[in-house]
């Protein structure tokens, strides 16, 4: 039998197989579980968008597109970026259509990072930045954000982690798992630290449309001269409930995007054609759907924040994405202990905060991609569990 450990790439073998997997498997198998564990919209892709995908199939549009993606889609993305973020991108060589936001993150990191380069990753955050950085030979440098700052990245924290080897900063806001957003003034402070350096920013803005409480998302690319050093990653999954279509995009300066597109061209060829046609429809006529979904998320958000606060698990008010991140330090349990006991005793599935980095310890992630009645039932059970803990 082959010794696969000596054959396979040690960097890949060394990638943490997400300890959380085992817990997830238990939750999937168990009966009568009510889950707030999924970070994926419960809404279906709006019908007119699905229809556009179907129509493209009926018309026989079943071939590769340009490596960059359909021109019509890139033009629509350029218009969208101008309107939503007030940043101009040339659809010819500054916009790449990718297989979900994930592929754009991968291509961005691989295009920038050489072996030994440091990549700054604020945590708690989505779990892909660290392993992708390692695969590129880079060194992840974790910046722990704190509840005191509402899990925003501060200029001081950023400055304290910059070294001569720093190549890139990942800026994942609005945040999975905390729901934190960066306001204009926060971004201006970061910009001051970054200007004059050679550090690139990979701004993962996949939740940019899901903000609440009046303040709209601000892209760091729209601040000062930040556009020249920023790659914006966004996509259709969260905004239009199109997770399964696998479609995202990256926008950035032409010299960077042309290198990313080389990677994309060799690894992927082109993003799914059907999904690209559906995405054109989404950008052109999907605004009312987004507004309706955001309004619905907002009501659920208020309900779930209130629910956790009522049971004494304080959580700051998340202003973006579709997660709440309540603090469980008062219970004396670790986040994994809490989630495991909750699952076994009340059959409610939540994700332990520690799954998103060490600084997520002491917190839980609850998603509100669920109906209000589902959320109410889950909250009632969690409340009962917390009462038992208090005794």
């Amino acid at each position, binding site marked *: 039998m082959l010794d696969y450990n000596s054959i396979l790439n040690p960097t890949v073998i060394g990638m943490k197989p*997400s300890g*959380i997997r085992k*817990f*997830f498997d238990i*939750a*999937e198998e168990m009966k009568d*579980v009510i*889950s707030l*564990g*999924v*970070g*994926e919209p*419960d809404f279906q892709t709006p019908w007119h968008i699905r229809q556009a995908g179907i129509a493209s199939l009926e018309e026989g549009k079943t071939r590769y597109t340009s490596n960059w993606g359909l021109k019509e889609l890139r033009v629509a993305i350029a218009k969208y970026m101008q309107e939503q973020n007030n940043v101009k991108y040339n659809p010819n060589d500054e916009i790449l259509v990718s297989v979900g936001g994930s592929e754009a993150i991968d291509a961005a990191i691989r295009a920038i990072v050489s072996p030994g380069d440091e990549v700054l990753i604020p945590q708690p955050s*989505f*779990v892909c930045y660290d392993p992708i950085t390692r695969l590129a030979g880079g060194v992840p440098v974790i910046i722990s954000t704190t509840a005191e700052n509402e899990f925003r990245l501060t200029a001081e924290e950023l400055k304290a982690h910059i070294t001569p080897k720093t190549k890139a900063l990942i800026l994942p806001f609005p945040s*999975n798992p905390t729901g934190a957003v960066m306001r204009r003034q926060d971004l201006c402070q970061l910009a001051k630290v970054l200007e004059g350096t050679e550090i690139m920013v990979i701004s993962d803005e996949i939740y940019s449309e899901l903000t609440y409480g009046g303040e709209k998302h601000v892209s760091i690319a729209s601040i000062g001269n930040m556009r020249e050093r920023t790659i914006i990653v966004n996509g259709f999954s969260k905004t239009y409930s199109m997770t399964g279509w696998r479609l995202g995009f990256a926008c950035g300066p032409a010299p960077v995007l042309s290198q990313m597109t080389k990677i994309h061209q060799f690894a992927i060829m082109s993003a799914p054609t059907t999904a690209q046609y559906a995405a054109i429809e989404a950008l052109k006529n999907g605004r009312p759907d987004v507004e309706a979904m955001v*309004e619905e998320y907002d*009501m*659920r958000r*208020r*309900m779930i924040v*209130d629910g956790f606060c009522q049971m004494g698990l304080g959580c700051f008010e998340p202003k973006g994405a579709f997660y709440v991140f309540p603090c469980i330090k008062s219970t004396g349990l670790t986040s994994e202990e809490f989630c495991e006991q909750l699952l076994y005793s009340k059959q409610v*599935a939540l*994700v332990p905060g520690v*799954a*998103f980095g060490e600084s997520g310890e002491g917190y839980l992630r609850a998603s509100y991609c669920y109906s*209000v*009645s589902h959320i*109410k039932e889950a909250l009632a059970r969690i409340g009962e569990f917390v009462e038992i803990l208090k005794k």
Partner: protein
Amino acid sequence: MNLKLLKLLSDNARYTNREIAVMIDMSEQEVENEIKQMEQDGLIRGYKAVIDWERLDSAKVSAIIELRVAPQPDAGFEDIARKVMKYDEVESVYLMSGGYDLCVLVKGKTFQEVAMFVAKQLAPMKFVLSTSTHFVLRRYKELDIELYDNASDDRGRMSLC
């Protein structure tokens, strides 16, 4: 008039005032007052449960009756519609465009009972020109609520994204 509040109530009339208050950022008292006002104004006409009667032995039968009616000078279809709606057997009455005039939803215990109601009560009414009875065989969805399957969540239970 608060459209958000109305939308929530039409989604689920059993939300407590407190739940509604939390969801749309009002005080509980404000919610209570607004609802009371809308009830008094007749904007909110009532609250009902959507029940899957087919699960019970005492199942009900219902039918849609198309009525063609001779419109009356001055009163149009108004008088006859008002008379039709007074029967306990009648669940809904709508004035329609198209091939007939009044759409009447009738409920009863058996097909026979509904048929007899149409034959004995609706058809002989003055100015009713004809009736056409369509029995409901199965309900799939009523008032936005699916009665057929329990929708399953195909997303799995846990993910990090």
